[in-house]
C-alpha cells in the first residue's frame, strides 16, 4: 500500500503536468483562432 504523501504528490504532479500541457495547447489554439478571426474579417470586408 502506497504512502499517503506519495499518492498526494503523484496527484499534484499529474495536475501540474495537465495544466502545463493544457496551457501550451490552449495558447496554440488561441493564436490559431485569432488568425482565423482575422482571416474571416478580411474575407468579409
Amino acid at each position, binding site marked *: 500500500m502506497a504512502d499517503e504523501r506519495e499518492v498526494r504528490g503523484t496527484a499534484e504532479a499529474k495536475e501540474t503536468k495537465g*495544466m*502545463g500541457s493544457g496551457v501550451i495547447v490552449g495558447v496554440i489554439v488561441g493564436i490559431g483562432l485569432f488568425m482565423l478571426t*482575422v482571416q474571416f474579417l478580411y474575407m468579409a470586408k
Partner: protein
Amino acid sequence: MKDDFSRRSFIKGMAAGTLAGYFGAAGLSSTVFKNQLLPEEKLNQVDIGEIKALKIKVVSETSWYDNNVFLNDVKGAGGLLVNQYTIPWTNEGVKAGYQGSNLGGFSTYIEATLMDGKVMKIHMDTGWNSAWMEKRFREEGIAEKLAKKEIDFMVQTHEHIDHFFGLEATLKFYPDIPIYVPKGFYQEGFDFLKGKSFPVANAINNISHRGKVTVLDSSKVNILYPGIALMTFDVPIILRVFGEQAFVFNVKDKGLVLVTGCCHQGIISYMEEVRKKVKGGEKIYAVQGGLHISPFEDWDPQYDDLILAFNKYGVQKIGCNHCTGFITAEKMIKAGLPVVKGTARSMTKRDIYLGNGDELVIA
C-alpha cells in the same frame, strides 16, 4: 501513459491558454508588430505647384450681431434643418446690429502672387446683408476692384445665408464675375444667382449674374492655377445646405496655407484630406478663416481634442475668426497655439483673432 496527467487540469489549462493566446495575439499584432502587419498607408498626393506670396484680407467676418436673435429665428422656423430660404431672418430692431439689422456677412479678399509675378485677385464669399457688404466692399477697396473687373474670380465656399445672400452687393459692381460653386448647390442657389429673390428670407437679388458658373466636384483636388487649388467636400450642413469648398495655397519656402469659409467639413478632416491628397500636406504652414468650432460660444470637452490636433500638423499661423468662436481662440492661445491677433474694428468685437479689415500676409 493515459494516467500521466489529470484530464480536468488539462482542460482548465487549455481554456486559460486559449484565452491568453487569443488576446495575446490580438494585443501583439496591434501594438508591437503593427508596422509589420498593417499595410503601409499609400498617399495619393498631387503636386499643386507653388506661388510666391499670399495676402489674405478679412473683409467681413461678422456674420450676424446678436447670437440670441439668430438662434430665435432658427427656433421659430422649426430648427436647424429648416430650409434657409424659408426662414424670416430678423433684419430690423436689433440694437447690436448694423442699422438695426441682425444680418452681417462673411467675405474674404485674397491676392496670390504667382511665380511669374502675376497677382491673382480672388473674391471669396459675398456676405449676407447687401447694405453692410457694400459698405465693407467700399471701405476695403473691393468695390473699386470689382467695378474695374480687376478681380479674377469669385469662389463661393458654400451656400449659407451669411456667405451668399449678399450676392447683390457683388453683382452690382461686377455682374459677369466668374464664380466657382461647390457640388451640392441647390436650385434655389442657382435661381438666386439668376436674379430671383426670396422675400420671406429677406434674400433680395435684383441683378442677374451673367458670367460663367463652374461647379467643382469632390473627386479630386481642383487646381485653378499653379499653387492655387480648391478642395470640395460632400458634407451635409445645417439649414439645408450641402457641400463646402476651401482653398489650398502652396507658398514657396513656407508651405501649405489653408483658407476656409466656415469649414463645415471639420478642420481635422480638412487637414487630413490635405495630408493625404496634396504634396507637402504633412506640414501645414497656416490656416485662415472660420474653423466652425464654437460659433455660438459654447464648449464641449470633446472640442479640446480639436485644439490638440493642431500640433500634429505643425501649423505655424492660425488666422482664425468668424465661426471659430472667441472661446476657441482663448483656448488655443492658452494651449500655446500661434493664433494671429487682430485689431477689433469695423464691428469685430475683440482683437483675440483676425477681424474685419485685418490682413494675414505670407511671403
